[in-house]
């Protein structure tokens, strides 16, 4: 594999940052630091991809603005990154997708105290009023849209199994949204088990659901990685004809299936890793636009169907 030039540049940036020699300090007027989790699973892989894409696009569009992206493997590392971004890179704005809300609230507050414009993405901080701008998907809405589709498709009556994500607030909000959408109908949730947004776990949990329940009408996998595991389990049991699967996020493999009109995966619900690009765009607007950029920007979670799938399809993205 040939190392892409972005990686080389990034490596050079990190090295020079570490040596205390800011590479482009002189010419640029604004430096925006972007701090994101390392690509440890599919969705964060997508975040990394879209962050790099947005950096390239925005830097060529606005010569006065430069980005520096740092990725962290855990919350502690991310807190260190923030300190380095402030002291070594002298950033004017920070775009951060926090690893976890709790541990990063205070480090972000300290960045804010340096009069740096702060944009928080996806996972909100535990204390209000720190960030200038909050960009996020809507987890409750994501669950609700999924539940509503299953509700309508089954005419309000049937058996559903649910594969939950990693036990977190994100997962709880989605499940609450889902439950609120099917409340009062004759749709029964046979069981919910955690599949941790993971393919292998999705496969195994679904295998067990299939041997436990003879009558399943729909599967809410909540995540596209999980959904891919579920698809294999259903294929193995040869029960493709009796049920359908709803995932979530917008992985290209699933979007492709939706685009092609796959009966087993008729729709997907968007929770896009590209929201990091939205956040970077808006942060740039804070410096170049004459309109105010503050407040909250909540992305919708539209239902992706065969008709509109194409606009959400990124064949080059790793996710």
């Amino acid at each position, binding site marked *: 594999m040939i190392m892409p030039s972005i990686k080389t540049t990034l490596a050079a940036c990190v090295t020079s940052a570490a040596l205390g020699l800011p590479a482009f300090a002189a010419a640029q007027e604004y430096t925006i630091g972007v701090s994101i989790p390392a690509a440890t699973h*599919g969705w964060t892989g997508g975040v*990394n*991809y879209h962050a790099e894409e947005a950096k390239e696009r925005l830097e060529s569009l606005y010569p006065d603005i430069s980005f520096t992206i740092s990725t962290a493997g855990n919350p502690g590392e991310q807190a260190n990154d923030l300190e380095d971004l402030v002291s070594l890179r002298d950033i004017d704005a920070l775009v951060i997708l926090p690893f976890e809300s709790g541990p990063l609230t205070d480090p972000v507050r300290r960045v804010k105290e340096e009069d740096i414009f702060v944009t928080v993405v996806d996972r909100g901080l535990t204390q209000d009023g720190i960030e200038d701008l909050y960009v996020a998907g809507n987890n409750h809405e994501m669950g609700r849209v999924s539940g509503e589709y299953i509700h309508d498709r089954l005419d309000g009556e049937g058996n559903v199994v649910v594969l939950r994500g990693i*036990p977190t607030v994100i997962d709880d909000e989605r499940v609450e949204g889902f439950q609120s959408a099917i409340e009062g109908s004759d749709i029964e949730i046979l069981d919910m088990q955690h599949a941790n947004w993971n393919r292998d776990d999705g496969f*195994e949990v679904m295998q067990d659901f299939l041997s436990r329940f003879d009558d399943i009408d729909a599967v809410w996998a909540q995540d596209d990685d999980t959904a891919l595991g579920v698809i*294999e389990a259903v294929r193995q049991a040869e029960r493709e004809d009796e049920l359908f699967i709803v995932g979530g996020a917008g992985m290209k493999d699933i979007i492709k299936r939706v685009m092609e009109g796959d009966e087993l995966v008729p729709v997907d619900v968007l929770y896009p890793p590209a929201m990091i690009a939205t956040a970077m765009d808006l942060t740039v607007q804070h410096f170049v636009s004459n309109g105010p950029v503050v407040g909250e920007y909540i992305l919708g979670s539209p239902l992706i169907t065969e008709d509109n799938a194409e606009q959400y399809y990124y064949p080059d993205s*790793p996710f």
Partner: protein
Amino acid sequence: MSNVVPEHKSSKRGTVSIDFKTWGPFVALVVLALLGVLINPAFLGLDNLANMLTRSAFIGIIAVGATFVITAGGLDLSVGSMAAFIAGVMIILMNGVLEQFGPGLVTVSIGVGASLILGVGAGFINGIVTTKGRIEAFIVTLGTMGIYRSLVTYLADGGTLTLDWNVRDVYRPVYYDSLLGIPIPVWVFLFVAVTGYILLNYTRFGRYCFAIGSNEKVAEYSAIHVDRVKTLTYVMQGVCVSLATIIYVPRLGSASAATGVLWELEAIAAVIIGGTVLKGGHGRIWGTVVGAIMLTMIGNILNLTDAISNYLNGTVQGIIIIVAVYLQRAAWRKGEP
């Protein structure tokens, strides 16, 4: 302590007639299975049993290799990341040669061959650095664990590597098909276990593993090529990881940074549940096999019931693992000074 640990100590005391050290894991397995049936009769369904045994094959095969490493006083933490890395390279390679050889047996054989070569190579590196470099196995394999994990992330650009659909169709039966009603992965598991059993108990190599694990210095003075034997255990571990990967890839046809996470700990847990001693000197292949099946069974049973909060799955697993090892150790701990 040594490879001549008295096997029948418990019978001397006359009160306990079962030799828990040998049969402890089996007893625990039966108890767990009974629990499974009580919780949900679907547990005994043929499909469920087949699913469960097939699933346990990955950890089981890796754990058979780990039994050798641990018996000889070593440790390999890199197996999970190694599996992910090998799976990643296999997928890239098969996708790469697809155009030249078409979606047929040749392409799959190239993938399988590459997997074996990588497994042997990775195991050899772990072994040679540990023995010749005089570095603790824990540190060496902790290092390689990080290296393989980040390499697979890099290869996949942080996303997921997916095997071409046409190759998948050719390769798929390796995981999903059965021979004489028994899934192929279970056959592989059985083959690996029998081979491991013979190697560990009926060959000079096996006896050397016991001797080195008991006391490396004494083994060295007894003219055993300690470094060579130890390196060989890591190579065997690598081959086992490669075999496990060969049957893992056709299951979902993908590899990502999330593949094989924590497999190393599951494999070590399976080995210890089975009665092998973590500090070396004593190993049991069949115990390891039972240990691996037990670990999978716990997850399976938890999926078959909603009586226990999902958040507590880890607690249940932890308790069962500790109880299983306690059962197996309790009887002979009294016998030791």
